[in-house]
């Protein structure tokens, strides 16, 4: 019977009531968090048993490297570095003591005054296209660095590059450069590519040919980059087993941090990295049966800081910078936004870096003093003290920016928040019109590696401070040949930053790398020629020694 004659009556009350109850019931299931303490130093290798070859791993990255993987032209952040070290080798590599030891190179030797560096190469090492990693190839790479997009500023100090013979390259520098071995690694960015790749500028960023443990299979931007085992790789493990162990490694960018944890949890043989305390707690809550966590210890951590623009109002005025630093209560910020799980920083350097000071004299939270300085500034500048807090649109960063805004408001500083996507954000930094950027940088224990970010006139000295005192210290530090000589110089650098408040240092970033319990070898095999354990540096662990328990 088609009974379309009944009156329309909808039971909305009942439905609404049911739906409302459901909503509240779901919302009431709150969560709890687990507290952790900061680990000391580098994570220790656990006994995972004997490595077995085969299998594959999927590494979930925090972003895609849209600039591609042509090492001299690449502008790699951590995600690019992870992919880079699978495909390429660097001439040197840092060990757990933070010392740069030869890696793809057999030796790296300076002359007496550190102005001529002789790079000795290993016999018989080949690129993935079968061509030798010889003097000519390495010289071509280093020469390409001196004209690369970011690299040209980094390697400004290089004078000449000569392939002396098939296994030797000689590099001369404009000034003595004791830190040069660190520049042959450059946080993992200085991968050596085959001449065939570098020669073709059109395909250099997509057609990767390195000498690394894995060989490019395919790269589908924003989805995955897959690399397969390089069967002719030059390294073997201590039992003489060919490295790498894995048949295949896949890198998958998952920009949404929460989604990355979801994919890590749901996936098989997965690894991931993150700096978000929220996601780190979520990983911890999984327990050891679902995730092995590698937490970066203290010593050489990156710094989270608030980059101030020293060339535009209000932060072209030292007192304004001081006022801002005193208005911000970093301890409270860490408690609220970082769950109290990170360590406050008063300086650019972490504990193992020459130049680290217990107390460099950086301005501390002092609301009364901040108010005084703000009032004085306002009186001198037409009653205004306005700033713009600019950040990427990551939820953690925005939460932090909101705390900053709230805190400085109490001192009379009016702040606005501007969210930008990653590339506009860098454009903003280079544009030089910002007042405050939420920034992250300066890992490692070789202070000279920070030169490019701080020298006067450097395009990537974003705050554009022009400080002859600092410049002289940086130049002195660069040519200092021993740690004993270096230390007092960088302590002065440290104090200068504290006195001039070019940046408001925030806290040391804590990286966590997670691996599924059956994924082993994340801390890597020892570096060749008794070079020691490889370093765990800011979200980067070696991939060459990964293996999967079948």
């Amino acid at each position, binding site marked *: 019977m088609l009974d379309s004659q009944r009156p329309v009556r909808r039971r909305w009350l009942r439905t609404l009531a049911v739906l409302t109850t459901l*909503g509240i019931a779901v919302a009431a299931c*709150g969560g709890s968090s687990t507290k952790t303490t900061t680990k000391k130093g580098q994570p220790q290798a656990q006994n995972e048993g004997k490595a077995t070859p085969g299998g594959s791993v999927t590494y979930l990255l925090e972003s895609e490297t849209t600039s591609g993987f042509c090492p001299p032209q690449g502008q790699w952040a951590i995600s690019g570095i992870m992919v880079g070290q699978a495909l390429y080798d660097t001439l040197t590599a840092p060990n757990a003591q933070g010392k740069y030891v030869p890696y793809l190179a057999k030796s790296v030797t300076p002359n007496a005054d550190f102005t001529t560096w002789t790079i000795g190469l290993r016999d018989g090492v080949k690129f993935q296209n079968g061509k030798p990693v010889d003097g000519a190839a390495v010289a071509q790479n280093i020469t390409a660095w001196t004209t690369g997009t970011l690299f040209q500023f980094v390697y400004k100090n290089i004078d000449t590059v000569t392939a002396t013979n098939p296994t030797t390259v000689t590099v001369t520098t404009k000034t003595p450069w004791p830190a040069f071995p660190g520049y042959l690694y450059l946080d993992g960015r200085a991968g050596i590519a085959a001449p065939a790749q570098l020669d073709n500028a059109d395909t250099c960023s997509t057609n990767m040919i390195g000498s690394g443990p894995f060989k490019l299979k395919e790269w589908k931007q924003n989805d995955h980059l897959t690399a397969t085992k390089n069967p002719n790789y030059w390294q073997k493990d201590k039992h003489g087993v060919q490295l790498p162990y894995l048949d295949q490694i896949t890198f998958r960018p998952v920009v949404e941090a929460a989604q990355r944890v979801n994919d890590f949890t749901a996936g098989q043989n997965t690894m991931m990295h993150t700096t978000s305390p929220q996601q780190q707690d979520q990983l911890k*809550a999984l327990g050891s049966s679902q995730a092995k966590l590698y937490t970066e210890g203290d010593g050489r951590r990156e710094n989270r800081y608030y980059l101030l623009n020293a060339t535009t109002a209000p932060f072209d005025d030292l007192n304004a910078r001081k006022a801002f630093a005193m208005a911000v209560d970093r301890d409270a910020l860490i408690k609220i936004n970082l769950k109290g799980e990170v360590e406050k920083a008063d300086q650019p350097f972490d504990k193992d870096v020459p130049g680290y000071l217990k107390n460099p004299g950086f301005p501390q939270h002092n609301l009364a003093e901040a108010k005084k300085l703000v009032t004085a500034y306002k009186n001198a500048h037409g009653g205004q003290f306005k700033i713009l807090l600019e950040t990427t649109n990551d939820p953690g960063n925005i*939460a932090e920016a909101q705390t900053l805004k709230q805190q400085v408001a109490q001192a009379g500083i009016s702040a606005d928040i501007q969210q930008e996507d990653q590339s506009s954000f860098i*454009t903003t930094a280079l544009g030089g019109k910002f007042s405050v950027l939420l920034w992250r940088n300066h890992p490692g224990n070789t202070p000279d590696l920070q030169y490019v970010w701080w020298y006067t006139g450097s395009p990537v000295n974003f705050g554009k401070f022009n400080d002859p005192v600092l410049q002289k210290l940086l130049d002195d530090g660069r040519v200092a040949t021993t740690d004993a000589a270096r230390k007092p110089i960088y302590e002065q650098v440290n104090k200068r930053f504290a006195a001039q408040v070019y940046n408001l240092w925030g806290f040391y970033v804590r990286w966590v790398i997670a691996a599924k319990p059956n994924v082993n070898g994340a801390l890597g095999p020892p570096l060749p020629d008794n070079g020691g354990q490889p370093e765990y540096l800011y979200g980067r662990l070696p991939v060459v020694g990964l293996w999967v328990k079948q």
Partner: protein
Amino acid sequence: MTFLGDSSAAQVETALWEAGPAGKAAKKRLGVGAWIALGWIVLVAGSALLAPILPLKDPQAQNVDLARQGIGKAGSILGGDSNGRDMLSRLAFGARSSLTVAVGSILLGLVIGGALGLIAGYYRGKIDTLISVLFDTMVSIPALVIAATMVVTLSPASTKGGGTHLNRLLVLVLAIGVVATPLLGRITRASTLAWSEREFVLAARAQGSKNRRIVFREVLPNVLPAMFSIALLGMAIAIVAEAGLALFGVGVNPPTPSWGNMIALERGSLAQYPFMVFEPAAMIFLTVLGLNYLGDVVRARFDVREGGL
């Protein structure tokens, strides 16, 4: 307004209204459901309007002890967010932003789209073709592209003179209003086309009445119910659209709360603190439900087909 999978909601209404000129409004009484929906909307709108004078905590004040505390803890009713702010208070103030954007953008779309739709539908011919192609063009560009780019353009970073930008709520009203315009315009046009064919309009024309008079006196009053029903639906979609924009960092600018940016900014908290996502989500859900339902009630009252039931 084709955001977020609700895209065709507006099209449906268009199609329902396009299907033919409606008959006389059915003389039905409002059902219980309609009253509840109306009650909820009034409650939300009321607390949005009165938020500053209600006994609520400061929505910006941060309190370490309240950070990430669940429902009913640390002296709160609905808990505290990742920045230690009172959720209840932020939901109330969030309603202000969400509703301002929704009402503002739809009003804007209604005025511009409605005017264009009336002109196109009544005068037909070349002007109709012109306006229709314009509407088609607007609809053929993904709405998110238009809205997001407009927000970035109108509230720029420091490089482009940021800090002196327009109020973000106003920018969002403009951005969402622009993408709403062709949809509201199309339905007005379709409805106008149908009504302009009716005897009493033709009669008025034959008597030599001025076009403007006919449009305002004869056509518009009959087209209004359709526009009103679509507007209610549009507001529902605009609330959700703002949440989508917030995901890309171009929604209501924090620390000003909106339901959308509350969800977007706490999206990483779902696993550990689900209430931070579910509370604003429930507000959106109930409000959108209410608006959808009221829109349907309005439509049904003027729909000849269901009227015959």
